[in-house]
């Protein structure tokens, strides 16, 4: 009998990989939920192909889900898995290089037949005669298909359907390995099938079979225990960035007292926000699936004109199409939130991969002098708060606002200590109806915010026509040069004035020193991990993560002045760095990677070290 050691560890990174049809996303999500409920902090990274179902068994069809869970704060899904669960040779091929030295590889050995190998492009079985096995990693081969068939032999199901349960077997095995209960997943299965399907039993049986296999098979030399994380009291859940964005928009509607009209055209990776919101019609949300992105933006703007909070969303190619309408929104000074869930570009690019390469597009991609605020979310949970902030600015300053998310945080999840709704910041909103009896001037401005008044159609006596042509304070079309200069200046000043409403910029680390890392968007988790690692080493490095990219915080200039070097890491070829260089005329340094995935913490550490 093999002795199974139980080892106490701080945390681990597990990656499930298999064919698109193998249910890896589901498996990963269940494993994550259970870990979170067991009291770990978590961060996940799903990664799937652009095709709906690429040919089964081929490298193009590999789908993966990685989770990092630990007894201390987890900021990123982890660079390299400690444990890799590979359901077929193609999945093995595409992921084995990432496995940490000394890690564990678990494979479904039943899927390594000649035909499977050939689909993955192997002539021979890479698990056999592989010097890495044992040296670089430990291999555990499990004939999962056969074991599942055996476990389900009593059930009246087609063999092909039985075999589909093998992901639950793998999940059960991992639960055993990390000493988890099956409770949560079993409850989930029961809820999903409601006793109506033989699949309910099959999945539960497969799950238990996997767990029991771990207990009895005597091939596992180690078992792990991750302590529960010390956490502040509260209600916890997991949430993806896209769901957080959806909920943030719902919250913005309720906080501002406005209906939300969410109008969009499907596109990866933004569509899930629509899917979420379309269910929430009892929260004052209306959703419109328009004929294209231009229409989607027009519908949202029409709704804002009517006194709702118009929101539109897309990803790169679709964001291009909205530019002209965003210009009209800026010119007519109506609130509008434009969500850009960034993906790999240019053009159609890498639709399911992440990138931060639409920053310049959102800052500058319109004709004329047309400044528009740009807000970026930093983590899945932050999508909620950042989009609420975007809506606040849109409504309080009467302006379109870009909200930037990205494919990574959109699909990843982290743990959320759910705030009480009442504790969230409010959004001030007033419709003007002429109550002060003064002659109405559509472009008269609030002296503080420089926002114009919001008058909706239906308001008696205040009839006026909005137009994208230049006009004067009274709303009359004007081709006068001086008026144009005045209006361009006022529109610019209004956007600049938004910065006065921010709180002070937070700095992680010392207030001055050698290196300031300045970043934005979904790279937060990886960067914060890297910076902390260097800080632990005693390096003179501090970190500012920007939520507001336009306008930049007023105190940023001073902060920057306190450091020798500003380093700007981004998943692109250097965009924010250009903005910083242009704004402060400093020689800010760029650190970039553009591979359709998040940074690796280790790479960042190496990159930052060069400036220290």
């Amino acid at each position, binding site marked *: 009998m093999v002795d199974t050691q139980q080892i106490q560890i701080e945390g681990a990174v597990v990656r499930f990989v298999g064919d698109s049809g193998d249910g890896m996303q589901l498996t990963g999500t269940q494993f994550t*939920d259970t870990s979170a409920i067991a009291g770990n902090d978590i961060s996940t990274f799903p990664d799937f192909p652009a095709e709906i179902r690429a040919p089964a068994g081929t490298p193009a069809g590999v789908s993966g889900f990685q989770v990092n869970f630990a007894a201390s704060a987890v900021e990123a899904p982890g660079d390299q898995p400690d444990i890799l669960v590979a359901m077929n040779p193609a999945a093995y091929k595409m992921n084995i290089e990432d496995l940490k030295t000394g890690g564990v590889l678990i494979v479904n050995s039943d899927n390594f037949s000649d035909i499977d190998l050939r689909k993955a492009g192997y002539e021979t079985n890479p698990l056999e005669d592989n010097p890495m096995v044992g040296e670089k990693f430990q291999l555990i081969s499990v004939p999962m298909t056969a074991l599942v068939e055996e476990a389900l032999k009593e059930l009246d199901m087609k063999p092909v359907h039985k075999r589909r349960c093998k992901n639950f077997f793998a999940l059960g095995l991992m639960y055993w390995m990390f000493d988890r209960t099956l409770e949560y997943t079993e409850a989930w299965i029961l809820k999903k099938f409601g006793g109506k399907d033989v699949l309910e039993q099959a999945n539960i049986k497969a799950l238990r079979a996997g767990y029991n296999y771990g207990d009895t098979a005597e091939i596992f030399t180690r078992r792990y225990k991750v302590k529960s994380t010390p956490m502040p009291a509260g209600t916890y859940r997991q949430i993806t960035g896209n769901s957080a964005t959806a909920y943030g928009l719902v919250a913005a509607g309720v906080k501002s007292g406005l209906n939300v009209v969410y109008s969009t055209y499907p596109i990866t990776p933004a569509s899930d926000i629509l899917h979420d919101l379309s269910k929430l019609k009892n929260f004052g949300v209306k959703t419109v699936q328009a004929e294209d992105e231009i229409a989607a933006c027009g519908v949202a703007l029409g709704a804002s004109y009517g006194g709702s909070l118009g929101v539109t969303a897309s990803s790169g190619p679709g964001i291009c199409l909205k530019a002209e309408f965003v210009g009209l929104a800026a010119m007519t000074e109506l609130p509008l939130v434009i969500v850009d869930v960034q993906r790999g570009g240019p053009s159609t690019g890498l639709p399911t991969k992440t990138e931060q390469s639409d920053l310049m597009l959102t800052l500058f991609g319109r004709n004329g002098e047309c400044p528009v605020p740009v807000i970026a979310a930093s983590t899945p949970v932050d999508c909620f708060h950042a989009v609420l902030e975007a809506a606040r600015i849109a409504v309080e300053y009467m302006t379109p606002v870009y909200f930037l998310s990205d494919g990574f945080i959109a699909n990843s999840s982290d743990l959320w200590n759910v705030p009480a709704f009442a504790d969230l910041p409010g959004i001030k909103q007033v419709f003007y109806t002429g109550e002060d009896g003064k002659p109405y001037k559509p472009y008269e401005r609030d002296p503080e915010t420089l926002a114009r008044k919001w008058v909706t159609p239906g308001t008696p006596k205040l009839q006026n026509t909005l137009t994208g042509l230049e006009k004067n304070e009274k709303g009359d079309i004007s081709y006068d040069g001086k008026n144009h200069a005045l209006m361009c200046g006022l529109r610019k000043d209004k956007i600049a004035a938004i910065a006065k409403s921010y709180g002070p910029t937070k700095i992680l680390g010392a207030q001055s020193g050698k290196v300031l890392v300045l970043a934005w968007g979904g790279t937060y988790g990886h960067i914060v991990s890297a910076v902390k690692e260097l800080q632990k080493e005693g390096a003179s490095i501090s970190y500012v993560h920007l939520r507001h990219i336009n306008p930049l915080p007023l105190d940023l200039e001073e902060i920057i002045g306190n450091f020798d070097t500003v380093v700007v890491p981004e998943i692109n070829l250097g965009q924010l760095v250009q903005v910083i260089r242009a704004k402060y005329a400093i020689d800010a340094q760029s650190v970039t990677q553009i591979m359709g995935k998040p940074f690796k913490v280790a790479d960042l550490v190496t990159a930052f070290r060069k400036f220290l």
Partner: protein
Amino acid sequence: MNQPAPIKYTKKDFTSSKDVKWCPGCGDYAILATVQKTMADLGRPKEKQVVVSGIGCSSRFPVYMDTHGFHTIHGRAPTVATGLRVARPDLDVWMVTGDGDGLSIGGNHLMHAVRRNVEMVVLLFNNRIYGLTKGQYSPTSEQNKVTKSTPYGSVDAPLNPLLFALAAGATFVARTWDTNPRHMDAVFKAARQHKGLSLVEIWQNCVIFNDGAFDNVVDREVKEERLVELEEGKPIVFGKDKSKCLVLDGLDVVVRDTALTDPAKILVHNPRSQSPTLAMALAQLSFPDAPTPMGILRQVERPTYDGDVNEQAAQVLKDRGPGNMDKLLRGSASWKIETDEVFEDAWKPFVSKKK
């Protein structure tokens, strides 16, 4: 819904203070005057009238109306109007567009608005030319037209705006022309009272770049023979002393001598038939083979998109009750932690993930 009693207005109540900047003699003036009269006669609250337009000479229209208005961007007015109706089903939306704005750059939006039957009156000013950009041919220009952009004659075949709308599932389709205020007024009123999208093509003369484009049909001298005013339930007859009529020959609508035709065979106009085939056949008629039909070609009922969106939202609200934000945020898979411990190293720039 019951309309409240009409309010007493005059045309002036719908006239804005802005100088009208169309060319002297432009057909747009007569359309503007008629719409102002129509609105006054209908007596719906003026603050609830909203005119949404794109870009073009015609699309300047809302600037001259003392209603709420949105002069948007080129070709996209149907989208803004749709959003407005989704947000505000209490407003009367009028959309103004041109043959370029509505059928060239904006063709798709117009088609989808028609398909969705979004409740609004669409006034399509067809002058068969791009006016504002100074005289290039448009999708309704006749083939071989010599314009600034086609010195050797255009080669594209024109689009039939009515057929286009009918194929997209239009519930109200009509045609009228700028020199007949009485006809325009009647059509506009019927269009406004229709529940759904009413598409009205208005033949509009551009004196500068396409003067007399419709004279071969609407000119005083010839119109009796070359156009026919459709009237619901009436046999379709026209010409001097109604000497000509339309009859069916298979699926073709053809012109016959009234005197030589069995009265029972004369086509009776029925805009309300469920099938759009008759309207489509009529929409294809034109000089010189047949008279151009004016008036309402089709008028049927079908649910509206804006109505259904709002009804569905109301139904969900009724079924599930008003949403509870705290419940939504917690979701279906949350758990509580009672002890209160804090990470040492918890640092978030904006909000704390864990307080």
